[in-house]
């Protein structure tokens, strides 16, 4: 009994990070209407940046956020401007090809530059835990969870109350509006890609104290993020957050009780079931989603 609670708690905490990464994808997906196959690679790049900042300058991963997030924001803006914008009006397949290409390039540049080794950040609190009602809670995972919750709440209020946020939300809900915005919409796309990238990057940074980075670390994140967005619904912050937690718990429970090797198989299974049952997302509106082939 205690084990299951323990497993669920660590799954929930990890789920916070999944939610963070998925919120980034949700924003990009919803606003720019592109299926970004390189999404996991953004997490990977952020993880490497964090590692290097620690390796060369001894910077604490949490402090590294100050540098990594703005850099990754600009990285996202750059991707949108250089890779996505030129093919904005091409078919959905062309956009997939472009982001698959980007993911290949990033993975293999990482392989060339950093070799295939697993890299970790050594921090004193990396393995530290505390006990609460008989349950061990990992400190960096708890930090990650609350940081995820906090930043998602911030994004929620930004989208709900700021003028720019409202404009972004309007595009997510009805993409035909985007056509009426003219030049301005390009700036909103850049912004959405930047923010989305920065959120995924935050997920990557928060992972570093307790996990390692290698060139293909991002592949599962791309799939996880898509599962979470499909379950949570396009444009739904709350839905995405809950779905992220759900996938975290499923992975932890499956990994413990079925087989650690098959835990990934389990959420891939969920992914296939999820897109079969509700391609438009359980809480989502899914309006105009046929543009990305999500019909």
């Amino acid at each position, binding site marked *: 009994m205690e084990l299951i609670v323990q497993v669920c708690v660590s799954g929930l905490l990890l789920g916070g990070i999944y939610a963070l990464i998925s919120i980034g994808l949700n924003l990009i997906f919803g606003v720019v209407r592109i299926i970004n196959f390189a999404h996991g690679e953004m997490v990977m790049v952020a993880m490497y940046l964090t590692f290097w900042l620690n390796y060369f300058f001894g910077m604490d991963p949490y402090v590294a956020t100050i540098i990594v997030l703005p850099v990754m924001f600009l990285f996202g803006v750059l991707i949108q401007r250089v890779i996505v914008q030129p093919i904005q009006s091409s078919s959905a397949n062309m956009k997939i090809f*472009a982001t698959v290409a980007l993911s290949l390039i990033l993975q293999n540049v990482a392989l060339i530059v950093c070799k295939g080794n697993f890299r970790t950040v050594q921090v004193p609190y990396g393995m530290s835990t505390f006990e609460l009602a008989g349950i061990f809670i990992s400190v960096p995972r708890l930090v990650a969870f609350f940081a995820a919750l906090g930043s998602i709440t911030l994004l929620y209020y930004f989208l709900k109350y700021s003028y720019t946020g409202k404009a972004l939300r309007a595009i997510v809900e009805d993409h035909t509006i985007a056509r009426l915005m003219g030049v301005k919409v390009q700036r909103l796309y850049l912004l959405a890609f930047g923010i989305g990238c920065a959120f995924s990057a935050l997920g990557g940074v928060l992972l570093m104290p307790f996990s390692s980075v290698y060139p293909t670390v991002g592949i599962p994140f791309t799939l996880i993020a898509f599962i979470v967005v499909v379950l949570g619904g396009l444009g739904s912050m709350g839905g995405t957050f809950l779905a992220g937690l759900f996938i975290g718990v499923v992975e932890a429970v499956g990994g413990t009780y079925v087989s650690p090797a098959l835990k990934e198989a389990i959420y891939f299974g969920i992914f296939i079931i999820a897109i079969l049952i509700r391609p438009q997302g359980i809480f989502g509106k899914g309006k105009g989603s046929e543009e*990305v*082939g999500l019909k």
Partner: protein
Amino acid sequence: MRTNKIIVAAAILALGLLAVPLYFTSTFILHMFTLVFFYIALTAAWNIPAFGGKFSLGHAAFFGLGAYAASILYVKYGISPLIGIFAGTVCAMLGGVILSFPLIRLKGPFFTLASIAFAEVLRMVAIDWRSMTNGSVGLNIPFKPGWLNLTFTSGMPFYYIALGLAVLVILLAWWIRSSALGYHLRAAAADEDAAKALGINTAKSHFFALMWSSGLTGMIAVFYVFYNYVLEPGTAFSMDLFSLQPAMNGIIGGMGTVWGPVIGAIIMTPLGEFLRFYLGTIQQGLNFVVYGLMLIAVVNFVPGGIVSLMAPWFKKKKSGESSARDN
């Protein structure tokens, strides 16, 4: 007149290809040709669902299913790979049946994602199911030369087998594309709703395309494994080798056309080998950086693939063919 020229050219090409092993005894050259033929076949098989606009990044699933089916039968039960060819084809098609559920429900990108997930799941099953697959160690095909064992002392038989496979799959692809199924797929690719309203059961068309594609991929995989002697989950279900590579060949050559995959495989296979073996010793992964850049260039500048640059030449050839049929 034109048609005659084409027949002559095709005959010269065929004789030339048949004669290659007699004049080039270098194992390297023979291997390179064989590999190109295998990839032409794999890419042309990958391309069949692409007639209908469906684009898979998970064909390693079918490859692995076919490869494992035949190898397990041979290594564990001593059943000849000649029977394994059928087993491999059928197993891969069963995989196709499973993947067809998301295929029929999902348009474009989500089918692509589902296909990646499917191949990954199978790879993990192959690692985990040790009693059958020997886990990540993999299976070794014992070296017992003979036709029954599909094992040969020289590279020559496999040269001809691979050439035969390439020709077979190209002909099948050409036949499918010009049959009712092909027209229905092309209509569905252009406008799914219009195709449905015109009385086409598009789900059925996509399903049959996937059946052809998965079955052929499984069949090619059986030969490929016996050409290479070993198989382990990382190779048989390799995203790089059997999901991305055929997709890359197809897209760069020209997705959804008959000749695109051929041109793509002819260009990309030697390029890939060159980058892997010559530059790869210096920098592992460089080949995929180059592929990525090529892919971005294709998407931006030649969305129809290399074959679209050759369109004028092909169009002439095509009208020649059709006038030959009418006569």
